[in-house]
């Protein structure tokens, strides 16, 4: 099993990035993230990550959802992801990523959401 980052660290990672928060300033929503059998509810408030809760949940409400096998996301989060794994839409193209719920806020804030997900990626090692 490939190591993968802690989704619970999202508030710290995203909220420290002023430019990213600014890009998402019109988005207030709950994003559900399913990584294999693990579920998370990520509350976004005007681009800031207000809260991340880890499942299991009883009758959760959410706006839109992303679901992906753990191994594919682990590759996505590698410092230099391999071809086919470097972008959310690469995972979509592979059939690994499944989208659900109301996709209007997802598509309207696509670059923001891609970067929120990529913020969990470990930085590339510099020589």
């Amino acid at each position, binding site marked *: 099993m490939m190591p993968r980052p802690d989704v619970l660290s999202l508030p710290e990672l995203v909220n420290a990035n002023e430019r990213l928060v600014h890009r998402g300033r019109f988005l207030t929503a709950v994003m559900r993230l399913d990584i294999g059998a693990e579920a998370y509810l990520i509350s976004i408030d005007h681009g800031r990550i207000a809260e991340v809760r880890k499942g299991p949940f009883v009758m959760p409400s959410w706006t839109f959802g992303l679901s992906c096998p753990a191994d594919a996301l682990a590759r996505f989060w590698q410092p*230099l992801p391999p071809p*086919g794994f*470097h972008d959310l839409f690469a995972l979509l193209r592979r059939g690994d990523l499944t989208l659900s719920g109301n996709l209007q806020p997802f*598509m*309207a804030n696509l670059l923001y959401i*891609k970067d929120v997900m990529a913020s969990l990626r470990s930085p590339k090692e510099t020589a």
Partner: protein
Amino acid sequence: MRATIESITGRYMRLDYKGREHRIYFEEAGQGIPLVCLHTAGSDGRQFRGILNDPRITRDYRVIAFDLPWHGKSSPPVGWQDGDYQLTSADYTDIILTVCRALELDRPVAMGCSIGGRIALHLAMEHAEEFRAIVGLQSSAHVHPYYDTTWLHHPDVHGGEVCAAIAAGLVGPNAPDAHRWETVWHYMQGGPGIFKGDLYFYKVDGDIRHRLSEIDTSRCPLYLLTGEYDYSCSPADTLETAACIPGATVSIMPGLGHFPMSEDPEGFIAHLLPVLSEIAHR
């Protein structure tokens, strides 16, 4: 203050195409064998700025990049407001041949990327005698739809922002930042519904899987170059296409994505130079 004036010249041509007057913008630089460059869906000829500015290329080639109607600085035709834009194989082929003839180009090399790489296959199949060689970048015979393109032209989603977000992911992860964001910026500037209209050709109308064997590379050499990180037209898609075309030359470019000439001009040109040299010496 110091300024560098590039050697690229930009001009407009007016021509009749499909019974309507069009105003087409094109840029060119260099002299010699005409090299006509075809941009990707939803973008424009600025993608070829690195090619147009490289003296190693312009020494032997007259590089020409035109903006398709509705793209970049080319206008949509008069009356555009009365219909939706939708690119078809026939129209795409027609505008390329029309522009080449209007400029009186003698058997140019055609080099196109993505939708340009797809139409390059159509040109190789149907108009081999009019071209000296065909270079397909990110070239495949078909792409299955993998997202709903309705969102690219929808009042509840900013068109420039969503097109940019789609394009951004297709850039290779190691592309230089300046070129990455220049490439994305072009997508932010596309007209409403234009990227979507181009993708009609890419994902629906332009499917030529069943006709690839008609391409005769002895009449017109075919070179296919594909970036390793492209997931819209993946290396596997290009290799599968090439396997159906005897004599096609294939090169997979490590590290590059869907926009090689724009996202990393230097990196791409290293792969292109041997191809152009081979064509020039044929």
